[in-house]
């Protein structure tokens, strides 16, 4: 064996390297946390990297995991070595094909970054819920621990499946392993070649469907033979453990790394043993060593081959001395006798005892841990071993949470920790936007290259898309680092944003005597007084050494721009002690030379200079002996927040959600709306400031604001008597209301500083250059005034909806947004549509939201933006899945329609008691205009009031459904990934249903939430993941598809280009009593633009003809008119002028200018051709469009 080749990479890359080399076809669909495996495979294929047999594998992105599984099945049947990468809901979508693939004894490996299944809520994080859900399919299940094992098992699984003919599901912990970066011994092609038998590959191919030797599979079988057929596979499963065991032995001979189906670690005569699989095994093993070093008799069995569960191998691994066992499952089966691994172990032992092959039955406990990436620590392992000693233990326990409902949880000593003293541990707090994570990934690579050092990194992100905070946990040490849990005792804490000094947990992970590095604008001798009391106290209590640097200034002065990551990284190298200071600085300079060599000597020199300049400006902070301030950090939410927000949301906002007990969490996933208003995030240093005398009160700023931070109200002038000094207002610009004042209020605490409001403002000063009615100004000097003004503004009455002109953009500013302060990106191009939706129909709105960006900024805890009006009414929102949103929302409609019918029927039956005239009026009421709706609400309220007093048994039934008498507005919301791809069939079916549903497609032309994968909406020539060479096909014209039905209202809108048309379309769609589809242009960070230019891009998209604005209204067809209206002018700008302002297009121009030019020409041709079609449609008469027979 040659010296091993070491590399620093994450679990996904480690697995993808092997899978890529060993397969010919890879059919995938992106899903967190597995996406990067497929993305890497696609990248390598694009680069022309061959597999083990010298051919570049085909990587195909499908429309869903169901589609990917079907393609995998087909490719396997046709003889190709085929794989896929997936997780969670994706794996569940593959389930039917998995039965088929296993039933047909087909060799393949599915690599799964195991992730929680959406139940009471979606969770992108890791557990074994998905893997457990597919246990009955017939796939063997091979579990990996850390990154090294994930790589190794990927190979072992592939070699074994070819020999066994049983398909394998190889899984490893989502995020904890898939995203952990570690230093591992890389497998070489020679290893792969040695372990994978080409004869078996040929045998696999020989089993392919082949017209030269025809056979058939997939027959339909009857009661006479199906059962027997199902039993034919048993010998293959019986042989499988032996095959895997043999493969592992051969692997050990090749690499020196030994694995077994069940690996025992611990005392040879252990009394207590934990059985576990996945990354947790490392945590248990380390704790076992600690306990055994203190007279413990403990052990751990790490399960690798989870299915088929080989009883002989398990029993052989388990010491005879064992008295009690805890079997840990990282999943939950509500109502079951225990989770799958527990049941397998229990059955194995009881059958062994019953058969006499084992003397006595040890006590077996089943425990759940780590669901949704909940931390699993040595302290928890110690608690489990403690429970194994208890006379009356909890037979079914949980660990890692506080279960005060069913009392399942074990008590854990949170202070217990296991960290080797020679391991350097560092924790960094940064913003997503400041490059902290990227710099730390770079540090890991640099240090990991040292042959004497091992390194590990793991990153934690919050769920906000704007101002997201990151935590980086880095370990460095002389031995391989197998600690799959967050650092609790760090020797170095990096605080990369001064605002984080207010966090209550900044130094919670600091070990005594640790170094704290603070990026601060304050001078070293003034910093101390700027820190809040809790931080000062903790620094002194833990005797921390504090260093500071003004990284923003250093970055600017050394020509590094605005990003502080390189500056902070240099400080870390200088202070952390991972390497001697001089060596560390030399290493970082080597890294710079490597990274920037292509950019020229000048760039390298500039970076070198920045390093030196940084070191000159890094200072130790003199610390006094005592706390010098009484200033406490601001509470997470203000004291007037509702009780739920105080007790639950505030804890989660403060990053202490782990402390919440089971009883604090809603049992059925039902959470209150309107919580984002309490989370004041203060993300932006500058905010828009209103100039009342310039403002023309057009309302465009409020219309385009992605975070609903600009509100307008008009009110009686007399109210200003209570206003704070200098409260800005202006006479309402409307004839006939001389006594009304108008105020445009900016919610400064909630503003993300995108600047779209300023960009869209048409009012300019005639006296001062560059001044508009809204101008971005530094926030700090004005925040107190802004808060007082906002407080007063909220006392002004919400404008009466019946006095507001809904048909104009100007009018909408007075409608209360019931979608506010989402966690969306600064400058988001989607949220203005949702805000408008909530303004127009919010008090009777049902939203079915497909999984994606909109479900994350719309529904990700801790706080959510959908809210209520002053009457307590507002949108009711739910997310089912990614793939089923159209059907899900359709269900809303069916329920509403049915219950409307029921309520009408009951009202008629109760007419005598409720008032015949009132019932008649109610049932005949038109409900189009706001005043009609308001009158109807009043009627229903009166009916309910009367019904409550009734003794009639039907009255209670009527009350249960009476609210349906006010027309419900059902909206199906999602992105293009949903509408064009995974939900396409369902959407098509629902549009064809004729029911009154409204579909809002927030079209960013790419999968935004999962990181920029191509969808069928991605335009020709745009670069995206899985379209690295530019998408060769034009985007699907969903509008024309829907128009083809004849009865679907269809609109294509772009609020930045024509807000009035967007408003009109939304109102027409809602008023139309059949299905409606609105395609909304949504600029996005995935386009590679400055988001403040989003509106300009929308205008260019329309002017260039890329996004022609149109409406198709079947109602007009019924009246003999042309239902198709083209709302934008003939293209007046070359497509290039729009495209080449976006990175998604210029990337191709840089990587392959010839191809980019060809695609640009083709894209222009598509625009020209499509415009011709639209123009022709716009000039037809109504009879030339499909009629429909719907009423």
């Amino acid at each position: 064996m040659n010296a091993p080749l070491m590399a620093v990479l994450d679990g996904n890359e480690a697995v993808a390297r092997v899978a890529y080399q060993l397969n010919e076809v890879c059919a995938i669909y992106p899903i967190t946390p597995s996406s990067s495996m497929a993305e890497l495979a696609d990248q390598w294929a694009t680069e022309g990297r061959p597999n083990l047999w010298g051919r570049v594998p085909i990587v195909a992105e499908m429309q869903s995991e169901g589609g990917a599984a079907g393609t995998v099945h087909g490719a396997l049947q046709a003889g190709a070595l085929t794989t896929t990468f997936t997780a969670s809901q994706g794996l569940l979508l593959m389930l039917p094909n998995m039965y088929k693939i296993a039933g047909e004894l087909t060799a393949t490996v599915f690599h799964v970054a195991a992730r929680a299944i959406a139940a009471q809520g979606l969770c992108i994080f890791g557990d074994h819920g998905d893997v457990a859900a597919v246990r009955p399919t017939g796939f063997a299940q091979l579990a990996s621990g850390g990154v090294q094992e994930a790589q190794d098992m990927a190979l072992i699984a592939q070699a074994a499946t070819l020999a066994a003919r049983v398909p394998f599901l190889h899984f490893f912990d989502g995020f904890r392993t898939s995203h952990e970066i570690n230093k591992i011994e890389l497998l070489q092609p020679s290893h792969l070649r040695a372990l994978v038998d080409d004869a078996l590959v040929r045998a696999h191919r020989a089993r392919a469907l082949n017209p030269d030797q025809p056979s058939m599979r997939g027959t339909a079988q009857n009661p006479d033979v199906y059962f027997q057929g199902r039993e034919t596979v048993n010998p293959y499963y019986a042989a499988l453990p032996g095959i895997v065991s043999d493969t592992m032995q051969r692997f050990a001979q090749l690499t020196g790394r030994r694995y077994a189906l069940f690996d025992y670690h611990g005392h040879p005569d252990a009394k207590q043993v934990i059985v576990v699989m996945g990354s947790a095994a490392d945590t248990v093993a380390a704790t076992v060593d600690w306990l055994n070093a203190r007279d413990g008799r403990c052990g751990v069995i790490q399960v690798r081959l989870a299915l088929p569960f080989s009883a002989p191998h398990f029993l052989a691994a388990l010491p005879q001395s064992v008295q009690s066992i805890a079997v840990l499952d990282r999943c939950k089966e509500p109502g079951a006798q225990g989770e799958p691994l527990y049941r397998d172990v229990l059955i194995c032992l009881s059958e062994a005892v019953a058969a006499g092959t084992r003397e006595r039955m040890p006590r077996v406990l089943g425990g759940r841990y780590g669901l949704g990436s909940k931390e699993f620590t040595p302290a928890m392992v110690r608690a489990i071993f403690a429970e194994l000693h208890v006379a009356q233990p909890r037979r079914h326990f949980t660990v890692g949470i506080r279960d005060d409902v069913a009392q399942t949880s074990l008590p854990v000593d949170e202070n217990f920790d296991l960290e080797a003293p020679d391991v350097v541990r560092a924790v960094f707090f940064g913003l997503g936007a400041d490059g902290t994570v990227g710099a730390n990934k770079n540090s890991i690579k640099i240090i990991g290259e040292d042959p004497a050092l091992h390194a590990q990194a793991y990153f934690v992100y919050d769920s906000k898309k704007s101002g997201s905070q990151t935590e980086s946990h880095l370990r460095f040490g002389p031995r391989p680092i197998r600690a799959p849990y967050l650092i609790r005792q760090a020797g170095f804490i990096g605080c990369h944003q001064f605002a984080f000094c207010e966090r209550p947990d900044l130094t919670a992970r600091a070990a005594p005597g640790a170094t704290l590095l603070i990026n601060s604008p304050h001078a070293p001798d003034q910093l101390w007084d700027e820190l809040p009391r809790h931080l000062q106290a903790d620094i002194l209590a833990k005797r921390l050494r504090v260093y500071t640097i003004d990284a923003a200034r250093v970055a600017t002065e050394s020509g590094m721009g605005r990003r502080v990551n390189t500056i902070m990284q240099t400080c870390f190298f200088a202070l952390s002690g991972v390497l001697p200071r001089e060596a560390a600085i030399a290493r970082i300079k080597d890294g710079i030379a490597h990274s920037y060599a292509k950019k020229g000597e000048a760039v390298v020199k500039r970076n070198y200079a920045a390093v030196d300049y940084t070191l000159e400006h890094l200072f130790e902070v003199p610390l006094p002996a005592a706390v010098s301030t009484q200033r406490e950090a601001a509470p997470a939410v203000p004291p007037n927040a509702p009780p739920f927000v105080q007790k639950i949301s505030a804890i989660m906002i403060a990053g202490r959600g782990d402390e919440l007990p089971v009883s604090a969490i809603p049992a059925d996933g039902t959470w209150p709306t309107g919580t984002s208003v309490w989370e004041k995030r203060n993300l932006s240093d500058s905010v828009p400031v209103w100039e009342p005398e310039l403002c023309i009160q057009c309302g465009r700023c409020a219309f385009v604001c992605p975070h609903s931070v600009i509100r307008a109200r008009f009110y009686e002038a007399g109210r200003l008597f209570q206003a704070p000094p200098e409260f800005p207002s202006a006479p309402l610009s409307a004839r006939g209301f001389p006594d009304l004042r108008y105020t445009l209020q900016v919610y400064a605490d909630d503003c993300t500083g995108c600047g779209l409001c300023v960009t869209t403002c048409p009012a300019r000063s005639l006296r001062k250059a560059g001044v508009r009615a809204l101008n971005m100004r530094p926030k700090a000097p004005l925040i107190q005034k802004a808060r007082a003004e906002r407080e007063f503004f909220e006392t002004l009455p919400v404008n009466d909806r019946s006095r507001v002109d809904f048909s104009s953009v100007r009018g909408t500013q007075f409608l209360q947004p019931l979608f506010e302060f989402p966690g969306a990106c600064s400058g988001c191009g989607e949220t203005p549509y949702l805000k408008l939706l909530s303004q127009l129909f919010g008090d009777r709105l049902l939203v079915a939201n497909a999984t994606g960006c909109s479900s994350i900024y719309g529904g990700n805890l801790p706080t959510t933006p959908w809210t209520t009006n002053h009457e307590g009414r507002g949108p009711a929102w739910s997310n089912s899945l990614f793939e089923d949103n159209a059907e899900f929302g359709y269900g809303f409609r069916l329920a509403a329609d049915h219950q409307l019918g029921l309520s009408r029927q009951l009202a008629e039956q109760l007419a005598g008691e409720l008032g015949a005239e009132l019932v008649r009026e109610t049932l005949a009421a038109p409900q189009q205009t706001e005043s009609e709706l308001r009158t109807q609400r009043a009627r229903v309220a009166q009916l309910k009031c009367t019904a409550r007093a009734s003794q009639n048994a039907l009255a209670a039934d009527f009350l249960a459904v009476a609210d349906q008498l006010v027309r419900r507005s059902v909206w199906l919301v999602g992105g293009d990934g949903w509408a064009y791809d995974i939900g396409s069939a369902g959407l098509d079916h629902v549009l064809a249903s004729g029911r009154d549903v409204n579909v809002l497609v927030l079209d960013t032309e790419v999968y935004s939430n999962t990181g920029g994968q191509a969808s069928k909406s991605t335009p020709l020539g745009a670069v995206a993941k899985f379209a690295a060479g530019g998408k060769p096909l034009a985007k699907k014209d969903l509008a024309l598809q829907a128009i083809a039905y004849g009865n679907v209202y269809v609109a294509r809108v772009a609020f930045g280009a024509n807000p009035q048309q967007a408003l009109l379309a939304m109102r027409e769609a809602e008023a139309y009593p059949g299905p409606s589809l609105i395609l909304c242009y949504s600029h996005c960070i995935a386009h590679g633009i400055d988001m403040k230019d989003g509106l300009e891009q929308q205008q260019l998209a329309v002017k260039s003809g890329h996004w022609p604005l149109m409406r198709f209204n079947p109602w007009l067809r019924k009246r003999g008119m042309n239902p198709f209206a083209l709302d934008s002018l003939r293209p007046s700008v070359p497509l290039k002028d729009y495209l080449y302002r976006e990175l998604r297009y210029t990337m191709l121009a840089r990587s392959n200018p010839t191809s980019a030019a060809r695609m640009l020409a083709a894209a222009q041709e598509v625009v020209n051709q499509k415009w011709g079609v639209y123009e022709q449609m716009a000039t037809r008469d109504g009879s030339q469009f499909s009629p429909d027979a719907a009423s």
Partner: protein
Amino acid sequence: MKLDTNYMGLKLAHPIVASASPLSADIGRLRHMEDAGAAAVVLFSLFEEQIERDNAAFEHYLNAVSDSHAESAGYLPAADSYSMGPEGYLELIRRARAAVDIPVIASLNGVSAEGWTDYARQIEQAGAAALELNVYYVASPDEDGRAVEQRYVDVLAAVKRAVSLPVAVKLSPYFSSVGHVAHALTEAGADALVLFNRFYQPDFDIDRLEVARSLELSSPADIRLPLTWIAALYGRLSASIAASGGVDSAREVIKYLLAGADVVMTTAALLRHGIGHLGVLRNGLLQWMEERGFESVGDFRGELAQLTLANPAAFDRANYIHILESYRA
């Protein structure tokens, strides 16, 4: 009739050259220029500053949103193999060379000393017939005139050391002593001088109180300044002279030749009348020469230059006074 001319060693079929403009960014248009009768073409300028700025923006957008979210480490495919240099421009040179037979002259607008020489080398390797240095430089208030002049000389000298192809310098008319600068540049190795460069001069929008970005095309009235200096420098420099600015018809071409220009460059006429106007200019020149019986351009080049003129006083200051007096009359 012989229209051929020599421009910094390049043998041109006639003296009308398409100057640097966005028109040259497209190979189809370059072919059209050749077909319409351009004797040579100067490509649009490669701006070092623009490359730097585009690269910075490219990297910013690639990295600005990376490693920010659990679900997405980035939003675009990995970007290791993307061109961060002037490849697009170099490719244009290569394709232009292949597409047309007339000389393709590159134009470079640098910032750093390294930028001038590096890009000049790459332009030479890409096959440009010659290089025009577009020294677009607006001096800061604390920089004296001597330093500005020296900057031109230094840039030229550095580029000349780096490459062996002919190098022209496109000059600003705003020197205290244009003649002196012209001499200094010639001594530093300039193979040609292009008189003159037009600086971007923004306008103001008084309704919106904004600086307005617009470019006025030059008109025949603009030829006076270059005409004056070409006439003054003709015969006194070893470098070729190109006239640039104000050409609209053959009349301006003829005037510049009479002043002593070796070639006459135009963009404004092509933007105003179309690329086919090159043929109109050439035919107009031919017709004029025929009418006067000139056999070659050499027969009349420099005929109205100071050195040639029987009465060079027409260029003197005294003549200015005479003109003013004629107004008074």
